[in-house]
């Protein structure tokens, strides 16, 4: 069963617009990671959140983890064509050798 659900699945926005991508887990998250994949390339680490209520920003991208640590959002302000790609949330889980599982991904297109 899918542990991480992302929404929306795809998103087309006009350049300059703000957007939000959500990631919801059926279990408590012990670490939430956001990655970006550019078409045909590898995955690039964006941010990691570990504490309930935590918020981090990098340039125009802000990620938040809710207090219950089951939901995270990624917000992009004033989107640019360079933001286009697939955004994936990944979750670490407790116990032993941990594995990171991934959400379903959100494909973002930014129209100039």
């Amino acid at each position, binding site marked *: 069963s899918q542990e991480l659900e992302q929404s929306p699945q795809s998103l087309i926005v006009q350049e300059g617009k703000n957007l939000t991508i959500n990631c919801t887990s059926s279990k408590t998250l012990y*670490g939430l*990671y956001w*990655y970006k*994949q550019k078409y*045909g*390339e*590898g*995955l*690039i*680490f964006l941010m*990691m959140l*570990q504490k309930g209520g935590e918020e981090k920003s990098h340039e125009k991208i802000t990620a938040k983890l809710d207090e219950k640590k089951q939901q995270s959002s990624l917000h992009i302000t004033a989107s640019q064509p360079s933001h286009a790609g*697939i955004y*994936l949330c*990944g979750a*670490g889980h407790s116990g032993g*050798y*941990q*594995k*990171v*599982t*991934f959400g*379903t*991904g959100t*494909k973002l297109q930014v129209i100039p």
Partner: protein
Amino acid sequence: DTAVSQTPKYLVTQMGNDKSIKCEQNLGHDTMYWYKQDSKKFLKIMFSYNNKELIINETVPNRFSPKSPDKAHLNLHINSLELGDSAVYFCASEGANEKLFFGSGTQLSVL
């Protein structure tokens, strides 16, 4: 220098063939992974190795055999390739706090 390098980047082959994908990391990490990304872009874990030992095997057909000659390398060998094996395969290396460093992926097309 590329931290996690995969080769080849593209692989086109016929059904029934055997192929290998190589992965090397120069980060000194102990744990490496293979992920399969399907046509819907969903990343699913296949294997995890820690210091050359298999830790995770996520119900992958035994046609897939990972091999780790040392902790910097985790290769993926696939026997008797099937059409459904077509996908992008990502190798990853795990650093502190579970942060993953990914290779650029290998796009496998089985004809």
